[in-house]
């Protein structure tokens, strides 16, 4: 452990949508190189937490201190919109459930992957294209498709392209919202395997929201189990899955069909 400070430190994160509770008093530390899973059923607040942390949903309380690449610590919940956008560009990656939310559908595959690099100041077109080609290969997308637009891709290819676009800048923190959610099972396995290799090879720090416990077993080291806006259990992923303590975690784990 080289860096003994958490990358992200969240306390008391609370969000109400009017009268309705989004999430209450959520707290955790994310350490460099850790992948945290947030599980729970629809309406448990897991997506709200992700939205608050990535600045897309304004909060009612709490803080989330993030160690930036530039060296400082900022509370991402209170950043101005302009600063948050800059931080998102330099330090964060996003993988949305629906690839169309993370891709520019009218721009070529190569453009989708190269654009974030250009936004960070890369100017050498040949090098950006080489990097894009490298990422297409890594994500098992035929390099010949570099000049095609994602609309001509299958759902699984679009998702792999979105991942390439979000990771090409080597973000310090990646937010993933149901990254395998809309895909066929056979396509999911390939994507999971690719993600697993990326997590290991790049030493990614990530927060993954999912309702799929198999995804958390494969990709995450730690889990938060959420129910009705609150964290009911947290711990090492295999411990929470194999020896769940809270009644709701037990129900969640025992409800999964073993094929």
């Amino acid at each position, binding site marked *: *452990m080289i860096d003994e400070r958490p990358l992200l430190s969240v306390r008391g994160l609370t969000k109400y949508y009017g009268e309705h509770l989004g999430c209450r008093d959520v707290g955790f530390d994310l350490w460099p190189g850790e992948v945290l899973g947030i599980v729970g059923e629809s309406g448990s607040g897991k997506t709200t937490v992700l939205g608050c942390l990535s600045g897309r949903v304004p909060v009612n309380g709490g803080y989330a201190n993030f160690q930036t690449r530039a060296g400082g610590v900022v509370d991402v919940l209170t950043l101005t919109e302009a600063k948050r956008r800059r931080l998102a560009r330099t330090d964060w990656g996003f993988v949305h459930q629906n690839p169309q939310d993370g891709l520019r559908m009218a721009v070529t595959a190569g453009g989708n992957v190269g654009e974030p690099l250009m936004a960070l100041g890369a100017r050498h077109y040949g090098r950006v294209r080489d990097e894009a080609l490298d990422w297409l290969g890594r994500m098992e997308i035929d390099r010949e498709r570099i000049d095609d637009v994602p609309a001509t891709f299958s759902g699984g290819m679009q998702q792999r392209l979105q991942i390439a676009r979000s990771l090409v800048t080597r973000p310090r923190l990646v937010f993933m919202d149901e990254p395998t959610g809309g895909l066929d099972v056979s396509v999911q396995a390939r994507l999971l*395997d690719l993600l697993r290799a990326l997590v290991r090879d790049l030493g990614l720090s990530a927060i993954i929201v999912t309702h799929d416990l198999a995804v958390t077993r494969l990709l995450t080291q730690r889990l938060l189990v959420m129910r009705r806006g609150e964290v009911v259990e947290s711990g090492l992923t295999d411990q929470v899955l194999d*020896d769940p303590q809270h009644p709701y975690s*037990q129900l969640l784990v025992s409800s999964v069909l073993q094929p």
Partner: protein
Amino acid sequence: MTAVEPAIEIRRLVKTFVVHAHGGVELAVLRDLNLTVYPGECVALRAPSGAGKSTLLRTIYANYKPQAGTIRVRHADGNIDMVTAEPRHVLAVRRRTIGYVSQFLRAIPRVPTVEVVMEPLRALGVAAKPAAARARDLLMRLGIPERLWSLSPVTFSGGEQQRVNVARGFIAELPILLLDEPTASLDVASRDRVVALIREARERGGTIVGIFHDADVRDAVATRVVDLADLSAA
């Protein structure tokens, strides 16, 4: 000269399963359990099925969460309590100090056998080439046919999967090994190869706690056999 410190020191360990779906029924499995294991020892746990042998191994590995007690493990020139350690420290212990071999392999589709086996070495920072070479050596030694090495073990037979699991568990030569029936579904030849690996680990000064159903295997590897019932304070 200082006395040798225990590799594992378990004190007053309590593990009870509370099943909330069945009205909070409580299954007390480990009650006030004490156990000390020194480097170079291979302790075989003996008890009837369902008495908690596997539960004890999983609790030492922090896969199960006990209600009380301490599990002090010698790790990185110090000691760490697996009961209270933070997740990231537990993961560091699993990388560097404690290996766990279960009867079942949790294989991932698409990942070749050789990569499954070399992964613990890669996690320690060993480069891909030497890690793969070591993995091939072990697979060869355990009698897994070479034509299978590049395939995912998902479709392998039970005995083949178990040997892949053993290879993965032994490759990093970790100081402590927890073995849950490592020879359960193996033929005699494969069984003897695993026995040889266990003895080598012991002779390196490794610490082993295991469940060996087969009395021949137990006699061949164990330096001490303990009845689980005797570990709990009366």
